[in-house]
């Protein structure tokens, strides 16, 4: 931890750091590539909608001693689709299989009869409609759209419109990637998947907002100084919250990864797998997009703002003159070089009086006493 702790400290101070903003084009490119793959996958393969949305076939067996688990496996083998098996009060089984037409249903029925050793004539086959009908889907869409509008308005007020746009782009990015992966992997989209997607929607925004909150704080008085451009400050803000982002992502992803890889790995496809896959992909994408997409996007948009543009000019001019004047040229990325005191100083200072003016100076653009 010691090393990590130090790393955290260095990240905060900007001694080490990754140039997220500077290399944003690479990450934009990667994201665009993934998104295009996702969209192509979606267009070519389409989504494999589950029984809740499309309906399917239902088989009702007479009283049988076969367990639900066995029946599930044989039904899955017979149909190649996701299966829901329930034991009925009568002792029989109700087996629901998605994506089955009448012809296929007869074949499955025969297979089932053989596997479950019940007479074929006694298995009752029927088509079932979706339990997640048009009405529910329509309302869910309405809800989503209303939510997105509200969240953009909220972010525009709480932060600013550029951040609202960036957050929305990041959100769409996450959802597209998750849905695309579903199309590519070919997992069936169940109600669980949809719930998973909605969870991601909340999480992705949540994560972006946390990162933006720090960005907003760091760039509060940006125009009152001439040392750093907006992009540089934004970059440092990302690096400063990097530890938080990594920790949060790990904590959120670990249980889901457990479900997906341990739970799902042992049991093959199932409802658990559906949900945990969408959650896993979405959470990862959400954490990634807050850092690699949303914040650089804000910086891009901000740099078009005349004020920020002027600031950039001032900063660059100053650096140029400083470079001309002497060797104390501070490269933008390593702008905090001066802080990197030698270790001996540290030791001395620990003993030394703790003098508070330091903290005033340590405003770092944060409103030190101000809290809202």
């Amino acid at each position: 931890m010691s090393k990590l702790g130090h790393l955290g400290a260095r990240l905060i101070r900007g001694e080490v750091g990754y140039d997220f903003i500077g290399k944003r084009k690479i990450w934009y490119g990667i994201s665009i590539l993934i998104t295009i793959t996702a969209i192509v996958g979606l267009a070519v393969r389409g989504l494999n909608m589950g029984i809740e949305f499309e309906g399917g076939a239902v088989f009702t067996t007479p009283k049988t001693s076969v367990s639900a688990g066995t029946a599930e496996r044989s039904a899955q083998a017979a149909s190649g689709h996701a299966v829901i098996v329930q034991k009925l009060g009568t002792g029989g089984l109700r087996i629901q299989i998605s994506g089955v037409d009448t012809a296929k249903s007869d074949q499955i029925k025969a297979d089932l009869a053989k596997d479950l050793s019940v007479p074929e004539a006694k298995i009752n086959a029927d088509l079932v409609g979706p339990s997640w009908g048009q009405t529910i889907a329509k309302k869910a869409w309405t809800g989503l759209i209303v939510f997105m509008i509200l969240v953009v308005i909220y972010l525009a007020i709480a932060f600013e419109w550029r951040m609202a746009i960036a957050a929305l782009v990041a959100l769409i990015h996450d959802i597209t990637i998750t849905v695309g992966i579903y199309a590519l992997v070919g997992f069936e989209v169940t109600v669980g998947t949809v719930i998973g997607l909605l969870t991601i929607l909340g999480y992705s925004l949540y994560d972006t907002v946390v990162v933006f909150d720090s960005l907003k704080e760091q760039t509060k008085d940006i125009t009152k100084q001439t040392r750093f451009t907006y992009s540089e400050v934004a970059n440092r803000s990302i690096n400063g919250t990097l530890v938080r982002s990594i920790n949060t992502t790990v904590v959120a992803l670990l249980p889901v990864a457990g479900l997906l890889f341990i739970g799902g790995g042992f049991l093959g496809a199932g409802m658990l797998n559906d949900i945990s896959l969408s959650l896993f992909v979405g959470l990862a994408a959400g954490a990634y997009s807050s850092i690699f997409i949303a914040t650089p996007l804000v910086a891009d948009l901000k740099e078009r703002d005349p004020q920020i543009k002027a600031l950039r000019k001032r900063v660059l001019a100053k650096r140029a003159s400083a470079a001309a004047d002497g060797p104390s040229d501070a490269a933008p990325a390593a702008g905090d070089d001066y802080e990197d005191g030698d270790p001996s100083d540290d030791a001395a200072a620990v003993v030394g009086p703790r003098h508070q003016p330091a903290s005033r100076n340590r405003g770092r653009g944060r409103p030190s006493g101000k809290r809202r």
Partner: protein
Amino acid sequence: MERENEKVAAPKKGRSHGAQSRPGRVLAFILIAMVALTGGMFLSGHKTPRLGIDLAGGTSITLKAKSEPGQKNAVNQTNMNTAVSIIERRVNGLGVTESEVQTQGSDNIIVNIPKGTNEAQARQQVGTTAQLYFRPVITVAAGQPTPKPSASSSSGTGKDKATGNATDKATDGGKGKASATPTPTPTSSATSQGRAVTDALKAGPSPTPSATASASGKPTPAASPTPDAATAALQKKFTELDCTDKAARTTVTAGVRPQDNAVACGKNSAGQWEKYVLGPAEVNGKDVDKAQATINQQTGAWVVNMDFTGSGSKKFSKITSKLSQQQPPMNQFAIVLDGDVVSAPSVSSTLSGSAEISGSFNQQSAQDLANVLSYGALPLSFQEQSVTTVTAALGGEQLHAGLIAGAIGLLLVVIYLVVYYRGLSLIALASLLVSAILTYVIMTLLGPAIGFALNLPAVCGAIVAIGITADSFIVFFERIRDEIREGRSLRPSVERAWPRARRTILVSDFVSFLAAAVLFIVTVGKVQGFAFTLGLTTVLDVVVVFLFTKPLMTILARKKFFANGHPWSGLDPKRLGAKPPLRRTRRATGPAVGPVDPKEA
């Protein structure tokens, strides 16, 4: 140190100041609340949350659709889908019960209800056809305790009848309300009955109506009329009808087409049966836009307010304008629900827009009726075919594996937190534990309270919520560590870090809560259930961080172990790479940097 603390906290008065000076009280408060909730849970006898069908199984009801008489092709895909969505909304009223409704074959509907639901009520809701019609009243006869009609009707019809403020209200934007004035006076009902039947049914002789009716509302068949051909059956039905006999009520309403005259029974406010001859339906349940149970400000009684759709308003104003010209009781219209007259207000002026149904409602019955009305009339009638239990859709073994997997994941989280945050992880884990206990207890209590059922997606959502809850601590901890890195000691660090962390937590949780609220209000079904879980966990996150994590942190910051930055406390300044402020300041303003604006980014 103390001085520093005060300096920092000085500009800040109020809540957080109070919290930081009395963290013990806040902690005690939330712990007491927790104990109280847990105690409540054990007292209520529900020790586990109600689980959805996918986790616990439940009851499966199969309904078979039947065409209404006169509508041969009513059983079709469109109608079935409409019926599914109506039933769905009825059984899932609050959206958190996790019931499933789907069609099976061409004319069956399966309704799956999780274990522990009030099955009888659900079956009733599912089966209720809720055919709602507004029919003009042609004749009314009260089942009177005395043979004299005059005796009864004063008591009988008091509340059901309408007019009153209708006139005034009708003027304000078509939002008139049909509400009550006692209508048919005893005498008028008796005499006008005959006339009404005569006129409307074009039946020559009038029956001697219920004058001879027995006390129980049984009409004497002796009062046999001499009816005309077409109406003979109806007339006979009417006179023979015994409204106190349930079977008779059911028979008389069975198979009546909306466009025909009908005979129906209804209870008046005194709880006595009355019977009606009704004209063809003019307005039906589909014309109702929405219905709502409210308390009538004037009478203090529960009523149901209906708003009509555009075309419904037109039809309604047409029927009311026609009726307002008529003599009692033919100026009444009956609100007929599933063949029974719920209410029969009289009309004195043209109304449109909305109407009020009054009757002998209590809160429950008013809400039930509003529910049925606003979710619409089923386009079909249904017959219960079978009711059977079903096991969990998610196989037991899969659930088991899922639980183990989730537990392993959680264990990894604990290990990670301990390794990374060391002593601080105690606070994180305690907070997570508090959060988990609160979530569990509240979900358990909500089971019986509002029918909340936990399904697998909700469980997964709760797992993600762990991440969001943990994030709040992480944000807070990182802030504290930032402050320590700047050379502060722990206590001022905590107090300085908190306001910033608090803002971040509130801003980001608000987004989550917004998502939950919008989805809960706008959507239906499982999405609504999910939104509920999300909202609940978000609120709990805020509650736990404000009332538990922060006070606990404040208290622990006073302990030597943390305050002195023990290597295992997770707050060791050296390990955090804290820079002595003095040095840094000097160098920052020093010559090395040259002409630097001391106020950096």
